Structure formats: structure tokens, C-alpha cells
């Protein structure tokens, strides 16, 4: 047995890398760590860790039950640590703001047909299909990475998360 050990990070155990600057500004690399960001976030805050024009990746600390969300475009979510259930409902009527990018909050519980649910553990990625309402629940603190577009719920706090 060669016994290769694959190292994944977690909230409990992560080691942040670093930048060795030769001739540049470290801020140009916006270097952060998803577990460190989640360790300092409130439950279900959507904190941007990567931004390319309007496109964003958000780190989410999943803890207990979230509110309901909906979106006018597809999104995806990748579980980086822990265990998170995602429930889906097909709303009876249009509840998303048409033409608005990014995740949108739904007031209360959306009425509609249950579409199903998925249980994500580390490394599992799910589609958050457009126009479907979804919510997260996590019995233990977990870390999600959401692929979406900059929206009303995105929090940008680069100075506090990035190496400088």
C-alpha cells in the first residue's frame, strides 16, 4: 500500500496557504479560505469569495434551517464540509423577480408542489434549478459554496477575508 492521503479542509481543520510577493500587490489575488470565511460568518450569510464581473461564488455557513430562496437563473451548490439537506418546491405562481440576478429571498413558505430533496455531504454538488424555491437545513454546522450571480443577498467584505 502506498497510502496516499488526500487532504480536504473542514471547519475544524484547515490550513491556509499564502502568497510570496516578488513584485506585485497581494490584494490583486483576493486570497481567502472558504473554511476561514465560514468560521467567521453568521448562519446563511452569503459571503462572496470570488467575483468575476457579475458572476460570484459565495461561501455559506449552513446551520439550522435557512429561509426560502428562489432565483431567475440556475445556480449550483457544493458542500465543502458537513451535511446539508436541500428541499425544493415548484411555486404555484411566479415568485421570483424576473430579470433580477442572484438568489432572492422568499417571504414565508412558498406554496407549491414539493419537487424533492437532496442530502449533500462533503464533495457533493447539487443543481438549484431556476424558478424553483429551495431552502437548506443542517443539523451540524456545515460549509457550502454557491455558484451564482451577484445579487441582493451577496455580502462583499473583501478587506476582512483577503490577504493584504
Amino acid at each position, binding site marked *: 500500500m502506498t497510502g496516499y492521503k488526500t487532504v480536504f479542509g473542514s471547519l475544524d481543520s484547515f490550513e491556509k496557504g499564502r502568497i510570496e510577493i516578488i513584485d506585485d500587490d497581494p490584494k490583486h489575488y483576493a486570497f481567502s479560505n472558504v473554511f476561514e470565511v465560514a468560521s467567521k460568518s453568521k448562519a446563511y450569510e452569503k459571503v462572496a469569495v470570488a*467575483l468575476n464581473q457579475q458572476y460570484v461564488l459565495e461561501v455559506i455557513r449552513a446551520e439550522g434551517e435557512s429561509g426560502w430562496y428562489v432565483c431567475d437563473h440556475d445556480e449550483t451548490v457544493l458542500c465543502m464540509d458537513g451535511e446539508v439537506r436541500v428541499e425544493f418546491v415548484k411555486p404555484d405562481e411566479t415568485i421570483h423577480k424576473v430579470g433580477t440576478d442572484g438568489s432572492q429571498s422568499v417571504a414565508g413558505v412558498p406554496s407549491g408542489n414539493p419537487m424533492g430533496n437532496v442530502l449533500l455531504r462533503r464533495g457533493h454538488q447539487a443543481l438549484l434549478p431556476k424558478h424553483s424555491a429551495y431552502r437548506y437545513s443542517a443539523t451540524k454546522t456545515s460549509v457550502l459554496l454557491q455558484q451564482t450571480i451577484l445579487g441582493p443577498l451577496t455580502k462583499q467584505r*473583501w478587506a476582512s477575508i483577503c490577504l493584504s
Partner: protein
Amino acid sequence: MSTTETTVKSGPANEHGYKSFELGGFQFRRDEFFVHVTWPTGTHLISVDVFLRALQRDCAWNFFYGTVNFDDVIGTINHYGNVDLFAGRFNEAYRTAELDHLENFPSEEIGGTFRAMLDDWTNAGFDPFASPAETDAPWGVKNGDNTKAVTRQRVAANRMVGVKGDERIRSDESGYPINRMFADVPQDEPEVHVEPGYESEIAAFNLFAYLSRSDVTWNPSVVSVVKESLYCPTTEEYILPIVHGNDRVEWFIQLSDFISWDVQDRDSGSPRAKVIMKAGDVAAMPADIRHQGYSPKRSMLLVWENNSADLPALIASGKAPTYPVNF
């Protein structure tokens, strides 16, 4: 023979068994160890393993984003429909001596020539996409081919891997065994409960297990799509066989293990930084740099791209900054 292939200008096999190829003023030939490139103002030798690994990626990625440097002299610049082939373009000394040379070709012409060269120059047993520890050597006189390996289809999901009708997950049965360095990666698939009628919308898969079964290295492939936002994860072992010059910002999310990136100025090659990434780290690669990664153990890297066709012009004209955020 397709029209693409008819534009390939190749000469007969030489004493080593390999055809020669021509693209405008550039000529390419190989011997047992080296590829010889000549252009009107110079000549250059590249070790054939380095050349074929770079050529493989340039072909499979359809010239990728921005610049693919095979080494510090030869490379390509993608203009999405046409491609520059250059010698010394991003090498300060060649530029100063005015020995650099650049010619532009329709993508089909250079792509057809590159694919023919890759197929003719790759011997049986050598897989340019594989880790050097998992393939035979490319050296010697012509000995068969490895067409199956060099013509692999790049994974390109429409919405996400695992969605009904989209790219399939990997398994032993589909020919993707777990890589030796990922033997400890859990293979559990997510629990998916779908109500009738929603089978094409409710989907999840184990990305880490999927990546543990990749048979290639340094080959970002699309697993999920949000409009122009593309997740292009890849498994990395040894050295990135090209030096990638950006024409837009790209992002790395280190999913497992460790990679050290050498970052240089895109145009001059002057060193700017080393970016040392561990599991969970996120870093941007600015739009005016070139970079090359070193991965001591096979690792999982999520390369995140903005595929927007408008970006290179916005950045080149200064309308969009070369780095992603101001703080």
C-alpha cells in the same frame, strides 16, 4: 477527409518515421528526443515530452483562454475564431532583439495542423494527458499511435454533471477507475429524492468522487454552468505542461491537497508572486499574468472561468481592471 484536414500541410515521414508540418512561415519536425521549430528569424528545440503535453492541451481546449505558452518561446494566443502562433512574442530578449515572430491563422487551419501533428508524433503507450508517473515515455523512432488518448472528448456539461440528459457521472463500469492517489476519497453519492415530474431538475452528484476518477491531469473541464460562469475542475499532478497567459481574470479554488503557482508578468515573464494554495483556499489570477502550477501529490483544483466573449476586449482596452476586486 474533411475540409479541416485538407488544409494541413505535411511532408513525408523522415528517417525517424515522423511527418513534418508547416503553418505559414513556421515549420515543425520531430526526431527521437526533440521538436525542431523554425520561423523566418529563428530556430528552437523543445523536448518532445514538453511539446506533446502542451500541444495536447492546446488541441483539446481549442486554444483555451488567452495565451498558451509551450515554453518561454513558442505558443498560441486565442482570438476565438482565429489564433496567433508565435515565437518569442512574450520573451523580453527576443522582443528587444526583434527576433520574435507571429502569424495569425483561422482556428480550423491551425487546429487541424496541430491535431494531425499530435496524432502523428504520439507513439503507442504515451498519453500526453496522463501524469508522467502513469504513462510510457514519448522518446524514440515512430512506434504506432495513441489516437484514442489524443482525441478524448473534453467534458462539457450544459447545466451540471448528473442532470438527466447531461454529462454522466464516472464509475468503474464506464471506464473510470479511482486514481491511485485518490484511493481514500469517499465514493458515496448524495441521497436524491425526486417527486414524479421533476427528474430533469432535481440532481446532485459527488464532485470529489467524480474527480477522483479522472484519468487526465491539468485538463479543466466544464461540470456546471450558470450562464457564462463555468466550473472547470481538474486534477493536477506534477507540473502544468503549459504556462497559461490570461486574457481575463480567472479564479482557483483548491479543493484538496496543495499546489504552488509561479506567477509572472504575462508580457515580459518577470516573476511577480508565488501563490501557495491549500485545501479551501481561493485565489484570483489577474488578467495580466502568466502562471504555471506545481502539484506534488495529485490534487483537485476548481478552475472558475467567466466565459463571456466581451471580456478580452474590455480588459485589453482598460475598461475592465486586470484584477477582480478593489478593497
